[in-house]
């Protein structure tokens, strides 16, 4: 598969991955484009090494982690979450999930990457560790802290609805 075929076939999936990492459509496009440009320069070398997809995913993650670090200096931290809207009947679940989406934006990038890889890509911790270049224990720590932070930050209504949770 040459580079053009790969981009044409895999861009939608890569953009979904990038969108979940960044939480923003434009940032996702920039992220994937930047990673693909870097990959393009060494395409002929990587396409024979077990297929390009893992390499591209790794490049996206590396770009995301370092890129977000640079951009962080220009972004304003969210001190407090916006006041949650009054949930009407039948919309509590949606509000709860939207609130969780907002909370994801407050996670450190490494924790968010682990969350996306574990709960969207359905990857095992071993595979996540390979992609992030860390140990499985580090992956588990990131996941534990992210989940803990989400549980604590969720509204009392949501937590009560969730019952007790296990790490």
């Amino acid at each position: 598969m040459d580079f053009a075929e790969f981009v044409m076939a895999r861009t939608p999936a890569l953009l979904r991955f990038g969108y979940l990492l960044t939480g923003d459509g434009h940032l996702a496009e920039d992220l994937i484009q930047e990673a693909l440009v870097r990959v393009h320069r060494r395409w002929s070398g990587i396409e024979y090494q077990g297929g390009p997809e893992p390499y591209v995913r790794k490049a996206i993650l590396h770009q995301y982690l370092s890129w977000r670090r640079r951009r962080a200096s220009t972004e304003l931290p969210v001190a407090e979450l916006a006041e949650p809207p009054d949930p009407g009947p039948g919309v509590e679940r949606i509000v709860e999930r939207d609130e969780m989406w907002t909370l994801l934006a407050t996670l450190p990038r490494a924790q968010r990457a682990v969350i996306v890889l574990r709960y969207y890509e359905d990857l095992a911790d071993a595979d996540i560790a390979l992609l992030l270049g860390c140990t499985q224990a580090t992956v588990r720590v990131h996941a534990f802290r992210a989940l803990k932070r989400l549980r604590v930050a969720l509204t009392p209504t949501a937590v009560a609805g969730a019952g007790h949770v296990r790490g």
Partner: protein
Amino acid sequence: MSEVEQQLRDLLTRYAQDAPDGHWMLTQVRRSAVRRRRRAITGSVAVTLVLAVLGAVALAARLAPPEGKLSVGRDAGAGGLVAGSPVDVTFPFTPPAPPVPGSRPQLTLVAGRPTLQYLPAPDPAPDPAPDAAPDPAPTGSASADPLADTSTIAGSATAVPKVDPTVADPGTVGPGTVDPDEADPARTDPVTVVACISPWTDGPFTPLVTDRTTTVHGSPAVIGERPSTDGPPDHVLSWSDPSGFWVGISAPETLSTVGLAQFASELAAQPITQPGPFDFDSVPAGFVVDNVNSSTVTFRPPGIAPSPDFVGKLVVSVDVEPSGTQDGRPVMVGDRSGWLHTAGDVAMLRVDEGKGWSLTVQAPTRLRIPEPDLLRFATGVHITAAATPARG
């Protein structure tokens, strides 16, 4: 799985559908890659200019060398030896599969221009130097070999290829070359691709008869014909590439203009590098590399325009001919033995490299390179694994 985890899974699945479709991604990536390549080229040019200025300052400082300093002739407009550098040849495009069956790409520097030629693949023949290093594969910006298939650049014994009959003077071809007619039994001109950072003024790829216009890499291109010394006119194609290079291709008329345009469009804008046959510890100040192939490197003196011939230039080549068979008086070149003699107006130094190979340095007397400088220069010439000796 806890409820929060299940909520996360549902949330991510739902929000993933909001991602943009990215239907323009391939176009954007390609444009971005081209812009970065241009910036890299601009940066390289800037660095080159800075180095040139620094070199000029160093050269000016050497114009009045201290007592006993090695120097070359005044008519060369330079003084002494300066640190050398690799003479690798970088071509701005990765070549596609050979457009003519049975040919292999070979990357050279001809008249200062990176030149890619598809020459007939050499017949397997016994290697006269069994312990010779294998031909190295060219390296690109990528970590892996960009040509790790049948299109691998040839490291054949064929030397400076015939470039363009309107420029090259067959009578000026120096040692280490072979007759192109011998290299190509079909007696057709090889497919030749030349890249230049500025428009050429000698018009080697400007068609005498314009056939039609086309588009290559999104840029307008002209297809036409130019006369060939060997038979039917060659097809030529030239364009100003978005990568910043002026590119020209000539091909035998057996390759159709449609095939020629298709071949041009398949030139991938990814640089590749062919290692040179020698490393130089030092070179005469002001001399510039203008021809490089697998067995020969030429340096033109200051004030001389680039050209594919060897006339009036410092020539370094590696041959299979043993040095002891030549006339001359014995000299020591570092810790190697050599033979120095003058033939006409050219000083010729041969150095025994073992394995039946010899290193030859030709210096026209009008360059006025003193013998100590010539020996010192030859001492600093090291044959690389990329070298393939010329046969006599």
